[in-house]
């Protein structure tokens, strides 16, 4: 795969060497290439610049970008490793790698901690958990009384906040997750295990595009 395959008008999305990315992640070279196909689609959906903006990120996940929410925004921020405000292909592969079924528990625990530590203070504070809980309830249109919400928070912090300082640090989070392993379920995407077989359409579509482009060029040439 190289720039020759891109349509003449389109900028070729800048991307890191797939072999290098494969070496650094749980993906094989062909899996990285399959991810590149996915990346191209997402990164060109609103602005064709080879980068995923926050709006394109939302659009890809929820097929509409109208819904703003704290979780998607936070996940975007974690994908955007260098705080550029956009996600490039290397960011995309490295972040998705955390969700690979073969990735270590430790990496998933670290990512999930940073995810829930919304303001990046290095602690998951009670107020942050309350905010996330309220966001979930609103999403589900579930109405729970203030009492019940506080009771859930009480129980959570009794379980997780072992030094009872009102916030969960990384060490406490690690311990909490090891006692409640299902909490890491959100950190794995089974789809990633065999992405080239799961999405033959991506490879197939690329070839179709190229054939069409080739014959167009031949005719007009």
């Amino acid at each position: 795969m190289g720039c020759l395959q891109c349509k003449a008008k389109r900028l070729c999305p800048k991307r890191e060497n797939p072999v290098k990315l494969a070496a650094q992640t749980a993906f094989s070279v062909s899996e990285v290439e399959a991810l590149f196909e996915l990346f191209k689609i997402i990164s060109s959906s609103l602005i064709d610049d080879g980068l995923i903006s926050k709006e394109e990120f939302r659009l890809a996940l929820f097929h509409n970008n109208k819904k703003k929410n704290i979780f998607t925004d936070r996940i975007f921020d974690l994908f955007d490793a260098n705080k550029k405000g956009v996600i490039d292909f290397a960011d995309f592969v490295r972040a998705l790698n955390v969700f690979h079924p073969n990735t270590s528990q430790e990496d998933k625990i670290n990512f999930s901690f940073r995810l829930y530590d919304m303001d990046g203070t290095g602690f998951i504070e009670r107020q942050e958990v309350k905010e996330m809980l309220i966001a979930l309830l609103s999403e589900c249109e579930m109405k729970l009384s203030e009492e019940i919400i506080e009771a859930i928070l009480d129980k959570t912090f009794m379980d997780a906040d072992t030094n009872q300082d009102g916030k969960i640090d990384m060490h406490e989070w690690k311990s909490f997750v090891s006692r409640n392993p299902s909490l890491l379920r959100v950190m794995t995407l089974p789809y990633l295990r065999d992405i080239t077989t799961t999405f033959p359409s991506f490879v197939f579509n690329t070839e179709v595009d190229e054939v069409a482009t080739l014959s167009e060029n031949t005719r007009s040439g």
Partner: protein
Amino acid sequence: MAGIKNDEWFKQDYSPAVPDDDEEDTYFDDEAFSMSEMAYDGNKSPESPTLINAFQLIGMSSYLDLSGFFEKEDVSERKIRFTSNHSAKDLVARIQDIATEMGFRVQMKNRRLKATREHRGQKCVGNLSIAAEVFEISPSLYVVELRKSYGDSTVYRQLCTKLSKDLGVPMGQGQGLISIEA
């Protein structure tokens, strides 16, 4: 795309990759599970739901689900959550009954219920595998999360409709079966 998929050439040797949900069960480390059960109430039977913690609820958010990158359908076609005043035992029993009625093979594993319907020798149409879990919010309020592991969306919707009728949970309203507003 649909045209391609229907073509005989494509169907030869093609079986849709099934996201293997089973490895999730490895996260249910049985030892860790029974230890946490004993921690707060030795009398609770292993089958009963645990009191929910905030992160279990938060984890149900569809906004934490990145499968949208890989699925064309809306996430509401794959997952529902609803609350109910029925007892956990009742909820599990009813889900089990309805699934069995619809020809599913039902397994209970820890706090989860897994139901699978597979027609061997036929095309994949009509196959479905789901997982459901019941959590306690308070002694009179439970939340159920039901997820499609893989399979036929139509059958999934049929199952959800039957459940909503049986449990008296109105669809698409507050406190009912929730679909994400597009």
